């Protein structure tokens, strides 16, 4: 590189696991940079065959140096029925292990093993080497006393880059390490590893100190119980609820014995609820026991004891709950065979309802078929129900509008303008038809006054051509419009107050034509004004 240039390097590192002896050349490696292909020299590797004297022992020694497994149990001293943990740790160094791991040669009797679950992986230093450690744990239960030797074979898959296969298949077209891994040119080589034997000694539960109520619970448990209801009559049921929570062989824990004697009628206890963890080594069981007091002399449910063996303290533990005080009343006159009386009405006294049923009814006034559509599902009925809100809505809108117009006089007059103008125009047309010149111009004036007075909210004295026209000044059609408005007003004033305003009523055809033109102009003007939004 010249002065001022930059330099960079990229390193690819591969780990190789020799599978057979011989000389191997890895490479050359073509590498393309900026369109230029560099051929990096290949590397020669010689894999030596194991010597006869070393043979298999030496080979297994080498493998065990790369991968080995350890099996442990916690605790190691066990009691019959005890639930304990087994840990499997697989140590590997420089190997790419697949996720599939098989466990073989585990004992098939005497122990009950749950599913192994993988724990978070760690790294450990063993013999000055750093190992990747994959850890697995499973819950186990000792089913019988005795000694057990666990030495399973663990088959793990080691992932190896398959160089030859890649070359054959791809014929160098994609001869790139990226494509090797991307296209899965990796094969998995199964490797069997054997752990050191794990000795388990399972002792019998102590027989000499075993309490009488012990029913096989081994672990660490808590126990709670309560009775509901506590105020009942003879023959009515009450429920004893017992809750056992803890870790151990909870799956096989049964309800404690209930030493109630003959005072109660007992049914089989019912497992009302069970909540366990996935490995069924921890959880809760709730039992319900229905008890029916036979006598009003009973004052309590005796104390209930739950006994279990605690392996950590190596002793039996007994938890007692109760006694549970009860208030038992004498039975009422309910049928003795009832398990629980019928749902009673608020009025518990018996009312005699006569000695016989009431006689038959006479024929119905109207025979109605079940397929007949009831009136309340008819379309007419359902459709009618839409009317009240609709009418109310319209009413509300009109009332609002009325109130608004009452408040805003100018707006009310503005909205009124077209209507009053139409009425006045009718009179203009009538006057024209009757040929009454005076009435015609009076009606024209009335129309103009009615329209512009309302439209512009003007008092009658304020209505002139100027006031009417000035409202439309500046609008697009104001030029023509102004001219028409002025013409109309002028014609009216001329007719009403001018020299021609005599009592003459007969119209010449020319006059009649002019009046018609004036009427057309009036129509045109009013329409134009109506189109303009002020």
């Amino acid at each position, binding site marked *: 590189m010249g002065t001022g240039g930059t330099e960079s390097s990229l390193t690819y590192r591969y780990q190789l696991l020799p599978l057979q002896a011989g000389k191997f050349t890895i490479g050359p490696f073509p590498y393309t940079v900026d369109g230029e292909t560099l051929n990096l020299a290949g590397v020669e590797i010689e894999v030596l065959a194991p010597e006869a004297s070393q043979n298999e022992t030496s080979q297994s020694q080498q493998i065990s140096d790369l991968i080995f497994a350890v099996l442990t149990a916690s605790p190691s001293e066990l009691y019959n029925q005890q639930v304990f943990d087994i840990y499997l740790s697989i140590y590997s160094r420089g190997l790419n292990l697949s996720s599939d791991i098989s466990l073989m040669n585990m004992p098939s009797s005497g122990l009950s093993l749950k599913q192994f679950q993988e724990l978070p992986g760690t790294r450990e230093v063993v013999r000055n080497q750093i190992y990747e450690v994959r850890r697995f744990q499973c819950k186990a239960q000792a089913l019988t006393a005795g000694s057990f030797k666990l030495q399973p074979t663990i088959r793990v898959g080691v992932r190896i880059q398959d160089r030859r296969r890649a070359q054959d298949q791809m014929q160098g077209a994609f001869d790139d390490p990226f494509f090797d891994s991307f296209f899965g040119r990796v094969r998995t080589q199964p490797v069997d590893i054997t752990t050191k034997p794990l000795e388990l000694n399972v002792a019998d539960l102590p027989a000499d100190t075993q309490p009488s109520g012990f029913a096989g619970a081994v672990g660490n448990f808590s126990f709670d119980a309560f009775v509901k209801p506590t105020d009942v009559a003879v023959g009515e*049921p009450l429920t004893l609820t017992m809750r056992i929570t803890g870790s151990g062989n909870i799956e096989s824990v049964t309800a404690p014995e209930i030493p109630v004697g003959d005072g109660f009628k007992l*049914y*089989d206890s*019912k497992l009302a609820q069970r909540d366990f963890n996935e490995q069924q080594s921890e959880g809760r069981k709730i039992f319900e026991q*229905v008890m029916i007091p036979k006598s009003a002399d009973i004052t309590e449910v005796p104390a209930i004891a739950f006994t279990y063996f605690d392996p950590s303290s190596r002793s039996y533990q007994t938890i007692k709950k109760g006694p549970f005080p009860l208030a038992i009343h004498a039975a009422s006159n309910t*049928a003795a*065979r*009832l*398990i*629980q*009386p*019928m*749902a*009673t*009405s*608020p*009025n518990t006294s018996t009312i005699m*309802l*006569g000695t*016989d*049923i*009431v*006689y*038959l*009814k*006479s*024929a*119905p006034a109207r*025979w*109605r*078929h*079940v*397929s*007949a*559509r*009831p*009136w*309340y599902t008819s379309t007419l*009925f359902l459709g009618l*129900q839409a009317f*009240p*809100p609709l*009418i*109310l809505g319209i*009413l*509300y809108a009109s*009332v609002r509008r009325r109130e608004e117009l009452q408040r805003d006089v100018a707006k009310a007059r503005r909205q009124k303008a077209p209507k009053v103008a139409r009425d006045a125009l009718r009179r203009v047309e009538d006057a024209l038809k009757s040929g009454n010149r005076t009435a015609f111009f009076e009606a024209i004036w009335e129309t103009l006054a009615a329209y512009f007075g309302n439209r512009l909210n003007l008092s009658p004295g304020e209505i002139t051509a100027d006031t009417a026209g000035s409202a439309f000044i500046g609008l697009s059609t104001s030029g023509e419009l102004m001219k028409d408005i002025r013409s109309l007003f002028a014609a009216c004033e001329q007719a009403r107050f001018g020299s021609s305003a005599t009592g003459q009523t007969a119209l010449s055809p020319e006059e009649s034509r002019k009046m018609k033109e004036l009427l057309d102009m009036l129509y045109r003007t009013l329409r134009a004004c109506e189109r303009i939004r002020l």
Partner: protein
Amino acid sequence: MNGTHTGQWRPRILGVITLSGLLLGAAILVHAEHLSPPPESRLLQTFVDAGRAYDEGKLAEATTLYEDLIKQGFQNKEVLYNLGNALFRQGLVGKAVLAYRQAWYYSPRDPDILANLKFALQSTGATYPLPGRVTQLWVMLNRAEWISVATVTYWILFAAAGSLLLSSRLRPWATHILVPLLLLLSISLSGIGYWWMLHRTPEVVVLADHQEALFAPLEGSTAYFALPQGSIARRVDRSGPWIKVALGKKTGWLKESACEEVWPLRPTGI
């Protein structure tokens, strides 16, 4: 050539059309005969015959006649009530209670229906499911009656609202006018809701003897409470052949085959 062929085919086509028309007409007539309800005189005759059979002690015959009317779709309260009587006289208390209860749905204030229903229940030791205070209000009227009340109230409410809008003199009284109407509308809608719920989670009548509601829907499960024949319970759940029934505050599981729903048909008549 073509014209000759057309001439030959025309009478055949006309014949086929005529025949098809006749067949169609006949089919419609036959179908109509099956579909159209029998005239009221025939229904009345069956009803009277059933009553006569009852009086003569021919209870099975009376039952058959009443059931015939029901099968034809005439599920009037009078038919159901009389059927209940005929069944009760034969000792079929469960079925009698079922018929009485169905009749009661149509007419919840009918004293005869209520009296016979209670009497039948008492004969087996079953208790009458007395409604709570609120429910007592809802069962004062049947569904159709509640719908009538709700509809009238609805219209009056809107009319009142309209009047309030139009007349400012009435506005100070708006609360006094609208609140009672709204209250009545709410009550009537609740009444409709009650009957609707009764249709959704129907009552069942225990038809078999010595039934027991169990704690769980399993054979051999612990018995919880007894259900004498005729007991009226509410179906609240279902699991396979089992139904969960509620009686008062207790619930238990009962074989579905041991009971029957009170509302087997669409209650269009009420």
